[in-house]
């Protein structure tokens, strides 16, 4: 529970980006700064299961709509992990239920007010289900990755396999190992992005950048 006097935050930009957690906030802050996109308000929803409850609350937040009922926010970008095959459809339904117009396609914005865009990580052009997949793709040719992949294979072959390396999320393990090989160790992909350990010039980010550039 937040402390009794924890500050409340108003929406202070016409461009709002809703992501799942703090790690994503750190990642996108770094990437958007790299893209010279500075006028945006980014917030965490708190996991994919929170979207149905949090989106209606977000629309009520001070600064989202004006007193005349018009939207102060021009663009609302919603970004979440794939995790499941129907992620886009799930978010689009939540957007519709909240009274907004969803886009018809992934990585696009609707023509509603506000314009709503949905991006499912790591994107349609990258295999995987989450932010870590995208991060690792940007450094797939990094010389440390050979060691990371070998280490992951070796650990995964152990019997019993260590509990902190779930098969479905081996990319999380790999990302942590990659970060452990960097000059200053950080424990999350978002902080890794802040340290510029992921390659923001990689073509792996093209689809995501194409989505984010619409916020400029």
């Amino acid at each position, binding site marked *: *529970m*937040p402390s*009794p*006097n*924890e*500050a*409340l*935050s*108003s*929406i202070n930009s016409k461009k709002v980006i809703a992501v799942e957690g703090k790690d994503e906030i750190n990642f996108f802050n770094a990437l958007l700064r790299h893209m010279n996109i500075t006028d945006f308000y980014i*917030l*965490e*929803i*708190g996991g994919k299961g929170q979207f149905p*409850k*949090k989106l*209606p*609350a*977000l629309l*009520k*937040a*001070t*600064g989202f*709509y*004006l*007193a*005349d*009922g018009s939207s102060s926010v021009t663009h609302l970008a919603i970004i979440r992990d794939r995790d499941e095959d129907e992620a886009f459809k799930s978010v689009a339904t939540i957007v519709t239920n909240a009274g907004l117009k969803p886009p018809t396609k992934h990585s696009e914005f609707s023509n509603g007010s506000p314009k709503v865009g949905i991006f499912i990580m790591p994107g349609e052009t990258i295999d995987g289900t989450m932010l870590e997949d995208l991060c690792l793709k940007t450094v797939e040719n990094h010389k440390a990755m050979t060691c990371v992949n070998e280490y992951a294979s070796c650990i995964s072959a152990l019997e019993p396999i260590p509990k902190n390396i779930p098969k479905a999320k081996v990319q999380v393990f790999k990302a942590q190992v990659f970060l452990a090989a960097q000059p200053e160790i950080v424990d999350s992909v978002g902080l890794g992005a802040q340290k510029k350990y992921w390659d923001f010039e990689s073509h792996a980010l093209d689809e995501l950048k194409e989505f984010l550039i619409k916020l400029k």
Partner: protein
Amino acid sequence: MFKSIKIKNLRAITELEIENLGQVNLLVGQNNCGKTTLLEALFLIIGRTNPRLPLSINSFRGLEFLSNEYWDSFFNKMDTNSSIRISAILHDTQEEQKLVIRPVIQKQTTVEPVSSDIVSVRIQNGDSKPGFAPMGLELTYTSSQDPSVKAISSIFLKGNELTAEGTKESALRGVFVGPATKYDWRNRLASIQRKKRVGELISSLKEIEPDISDIRINEIGILEADIGLRKLIPVNLMGGGIANSLSIILAMLDSQDGIVLVDEVEDGLHHSIQKKIWKAVFKWAQELNVQVFATTHSNEGIRAFSNSVDMPLFGSEAKLFRIERKDEKFRAVEYTRELLSESLESNWEVR
């Protein structure tokens, strides 16, 4: 209990409508967005045909002085050509109550063309004309239960004499608690004593000041408390927190089946006390069927309000409304208990 309210041309509010009112309503919004005016509108419609209430709401703002100069200040942009209209729908019966307030105009008319110097003055009710200053207010009350019956009352200054006409008792009880009425305890405690609710008052105050065991009115009308010292202590000397708590709890206990309006509910209260006050408000609102409207600017106060609603059956009756204003447009943004909780958990601004 009101289900909705609509206000037109009262003070700064051009037009504001709020629906889905709860039993306990917290009102937030920036300065000058109309929160206090909303409380005043509720106070006026509660009192219906009591023409002295406009003067009361001025005194709640610390304006006790009475002058013909101030009648137009009740009207939006001081334009007395547009009447003030307040309408409210009751929750249970769906009865619509309407109050229209117009200026009483002092019109100068020549009645005897004998001499151009002779001018008489008479009172005229209704629309004002340029150049004619109001000398009072006329209140017209109607109800959807019997639309053909109009209850008309008025208040006006003639010379230095204040005259109120047509006053009728309202069936609904309303109490206004604000910074200017903070120490207005005497009559209310007397009423609580008569209703044999002093024990409940002490019980609620103990949550805030554990040492308090009794509270009495002394021979000159000052409230004194027993907190275990060798003699009773005036409540005024016990700090702003206990004073504000006492005002709110007294108002709740004295308003069975009525409405309590609290301006700046956080006034003088530490956040830990605010939670206790809200628990007392929810308890008495439920037990005595009191509808509550309270304003606040405090983040801590909003969190205390949200965290105090732990009665499952009563949760849906706790609402927060943010009053928004942009130039001449007003609107109310409604938060249910769930939406408020989600917003505060994410630290999203609701004020």
